[in-house]
């Protein structure tokens, strides 16, 4: 059944492209996304705790051991659910797209299908194929429907979109190249029999091979997860993308990278995390290196967000900071830290989606400016109170206030960090504080700015029903997970304890 999330998305893309009217395309897209969400929820409900559900297994190129193998464990299910939620709300927030509507939704659904495919793939080659499929529509979504700051001329606007789209595509392809090289190497070293995860996870790769294959594949995926210093595509890409695409980029596509880091790099090459046996500049293993890059990302992303004037860039850099927590959680190599990392993937997907929805759809589409100083005097809290309340709640979730999903995720990551990398706890704490500062700065500047004397309140179009539904869906998700995190923790923990991760547990687990 779960395989239909992929097929339906691609079929929906075709249907949306061929749709006779714009409204028809929208409805087709919404129904497709809802069907995907429904299938994910159904799978979640029927899931046996701890099970690895094989969805499909068909030989594809048997000569080289590649099969069409789809399967889902608790981690995949968590991210499938996220994809369903993000896709549905993204469509609700792009209801107002009038330019080439049919094509927009077609590209959008192809992207969704690729993402579902990555999370369901249980064959390395298949995962790579879906990963590449997801990159193409991203390029077109930004290049054609992207948003640009006010004042840009038509040509300049076009070139800015092109720049952001091209940057994103190039970074993605560079990362993919590293992953491809790692995949080919793994295939060769393991005797060229199979690329199935079940086979590769059990295959005893020599330690010296893992030592160079691990960082290569990890970096390849981490580029897409926004790891510092390979993060620069993220803020420009997020800012230039149309709202729904920013929501998907930050919400889901960055998770593809983090998921790859965990599912491929860490699961297949766990020995690569072990000590080198010597120290360079105080670093004793790849784990030290990536953990330091993760906390740099947390603090750097937050600090840069603190001084941005462009509302979308604030949120763009905040994604870099929050994804740093995911990478930090992965590098703790503790059960609680990894659990927190997966939960943070989910939580950030929902919260970033919400933040971009407010910035891109509710505010920018109405005011046509993203400049914090221009938005302040518009008294948006009075004019569009729904947007203000949504952003306040999303901001509270984003800074990790308890009761929202971000808290329980960062909470577990920090416990894991205390256990494994204690000297990074204060740095991460400072990152959290800067995060609070930039979120509150943006909140007060945009929604509670001081109106100039005699300023008129500009009437803006009211918030539509579609926007309200999307916002409520995302807010409810972050609150439910925040208040009752067992829904997801009970999925993730058994998956981490499954035989697939045995190498990681045996090797460097603390």
């Amino acid at each position, binding site marked *: 059944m779960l395989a239909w999330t992929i097929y339906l998305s691609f079929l929906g893309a075709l249907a949306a492209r061929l749709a006779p009217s714009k409204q028809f395309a929208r409805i087709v897209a919404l129904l497709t996304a809802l069907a995907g969400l429904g299938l994910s929820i159904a799978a979640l409900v029927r899931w046996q705790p701890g099970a690895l559900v094989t969805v499909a297994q068909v030989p594809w190129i048997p000569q080289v051991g590649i099969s069409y193998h789809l399967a889902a464990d608790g981690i995949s299910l968590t991210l499938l659910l996220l994809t369903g939620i993000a896709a549905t709300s993204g469509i609700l927030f792009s209801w107002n797209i009038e330019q080439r509507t049919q094509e927009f939704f077609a590209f959008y659904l192809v992207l969704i299908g690729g993402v579902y495919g990555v999370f369901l793939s249980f064959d390395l080659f298949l995962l790579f194929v879906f990963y590449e499929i997801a990159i193409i529509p991203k390029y077109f979504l930004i290049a054609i429907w992207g948003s640009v700051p006010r004042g840009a001329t038509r040509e300049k606007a076009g070139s800015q979109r092109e720049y952001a789209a091209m940057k994103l595509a190039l970074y993605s392809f560079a990362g993919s190249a590293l992953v491809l090289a790692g995949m080919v190497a793994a295939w060769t070293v393991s005797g060229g029999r199979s690329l199935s995860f079940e086979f590769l996870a059990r295959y005893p790769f020599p330690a010296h091979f893992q030592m160079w294959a691990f960082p290569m594949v990890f970096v390849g995926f981490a580029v897409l997860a926004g790891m510092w210093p390979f993060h620069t595509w993220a803020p420009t890409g997020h800012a230039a993308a149309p709202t729904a695409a920013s929501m998907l980029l930050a919400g889901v596509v960055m998770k593809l990278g983090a998921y790859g880091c965990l599912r491929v790099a860490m699961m297949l090459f766990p020995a690569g995390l072990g000590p080198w046996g010597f120290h360079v500049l105080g670093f004793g293993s790849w784990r030290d290196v990536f953990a330091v890059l993760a906390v740099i990302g947390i603090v750097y992303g937050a600090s840069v967000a603190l001084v941005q004037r462009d509302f979308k860039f604030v949120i763009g850099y905040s994604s870099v900071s929050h994804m740093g927590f995911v990478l930090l959680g992965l590098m703790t190599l503790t059960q*609680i830290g990894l659990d927190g990392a997966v939960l943070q993937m989910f939580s950030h997907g929902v919260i970033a989606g919400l933040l971009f929805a407010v910035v891109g759809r509710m505010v920018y589409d109405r005011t046509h400016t993203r400049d914090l100083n221009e938005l302040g005097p518009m008294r948006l809290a009075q004019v569009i109170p729904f947007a203000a309340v949504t952003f*306040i709640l999303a901001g*509270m979730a984003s800074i990790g*206030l*308890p*009761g929202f999903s971000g808290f*329980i995720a960062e*909470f*577990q990551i*920090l*416990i894991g960090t*205390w*256990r494994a990398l*204690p000297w990074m*706890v*204060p740095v991460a*704490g400072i990152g*959290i*504080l800067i995060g*609070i*500062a930039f979120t*509150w*700065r943006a909140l*007060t500047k945009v929604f*509670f700015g*001081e109106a100039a004397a005699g300023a008129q309140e500009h009437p803006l179009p009211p918030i539509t029903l579609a926007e309200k539904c999307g916002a409520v869906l995302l807010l409810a998700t972050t609150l439910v997970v925040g208040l009752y*995190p*067992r829904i997801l*923790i009970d999925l993730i*923990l058994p998956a981490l304890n499954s035989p697939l991760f045995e190498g990681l547990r045996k090797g460097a687990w*603390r």
Partner: protein
Amino acid sequence: MITFLTLLPIVGALLILALRGSRAVARGLAAFFGLSALVGTILLWIGFNPGTPGMQFEEWHAWVPSLGISYHVGVDGLGVLMLVLSAMVVMMSLAASWANAKLGPVYYALVLFLEAGLFGTFTALNFVHWFVFWELSLIPAFFLIRLWGGPGRARASTQFFLYTMVGSVALLLAFLALFLATGRFDFVDLARLAQSGQLTPALANLHWVSNPGQLAMLLFWAAFLGFAVKTPVVPFHTWLPAAYAEAPSETTMLLTGAMSKMGVYGFLRILLPIFPQQMRQAMTPLLWLAVATIVLPAFAAWVQKDLKRTFAYSSINHLGYCVLGVCVAAKFTGTDPRLAAEKAAALTGVLLQVFSHALTAGALFWFIALIERRSGGLRGIDDFGGLRKVVPVLSGLMGIAIFASLGLPGLNGFPGEFLIFKGSFPLVPWATAVAVLGLLMTAVFLLAVIQKVFSGPVNGRWEAMADLTTTERWALAPVIALMFVIGLYPQLITGMVHGTVMQWIAGVGAGVRF
């Protein structure tokens, strides 16, 4: 019962927001729910059995078992006192805002949210559960200042928010380390571990810890920071004068009356039971901080020109006595029963002072709200003069509140401060002696306020100032009456908390000398 009590204001707030009615409807609903909450807390107070040790009205549900998080509420003497106090201060603030036309439905909804946050903070016994309310109470407070405050509100509210957050993050990180070492988040469990001397050794469970005592000390200071910002303790107080002065006076009543008590509550519920050994080790710097908190703000209050700032600094000074009392209670006294009795006196004094400060400070800012409404927002000390002759009832009642704040025997301020000094002197003579200087300065600046505002020649501008209306008099009457009741019959409160205090002393008394 407690869950119901916490949900009550939330329901009220949501109802106000959902109905989108006029100010009068919102105000009526807020008063109804505030009053119901007050009645509920008083019923809890009556049902509370002071003779039984430990927590009462407990509720426990598993929440996230894999992370040691549970839904655990309960009250002891401290908790029940705090509940009544918060409900009382919220009612006072609602009464004060009755005639302030600027405050709309959203204001009342936020006040009720704040009340729910206070109730949750004062009843939750699992760290994570408690932290939810500790943090969430900050959001309504921020918006109360940000949306209805004076000209400097943007800066004041952001400063308030960020300062508190720094403390909260430090507190959170400290508790995560404690959880990692012990597997527990429950305050009662952690206190039991600490008092049997197992907490510090348990920190060695963290494989990288070479000196658990050092780490315990670090965690203590991190947790201390959280409460020191909130109470506040000098030098972490700099957010307070601006926040209190810029907030509308009705909100300042909530900030000083109830929210500042969250800090003192943290000292009593968390620092004293969970870190008694660390408090003992750090006794000297803690005492210096307590003395600084008592003395310096008293001098600062003297030179302020704004009544609200004067009373804001005075508020820091009064809570300094509480910090002193808590520190004294951690002092090592061996098996000497007389010294243990002094510690009990100091702690009882702290609880009395907490309640009495809520009452007095709440009343003082209420009077300032009344004066502001009559003077068109003016509240400088030098703006007035001779009000005694123009508005005798207002001056008389406010005079009572000022004298209560000053610690005049017979009024509510006296028994608490007296017990704190009585208990502290035999244990830490030098600190208590220096703290007396603060007491002296309090008298100086409060009398200066009386002199400049109420006596002297009548300032011609205010010759037509209206005295208190009948409604205002009736609203204030119970507050003034309560000041006398507690001043003359402090057993009303001491009787309630005696069992809890004795339990603390017994728990903290164990342990080793440093």
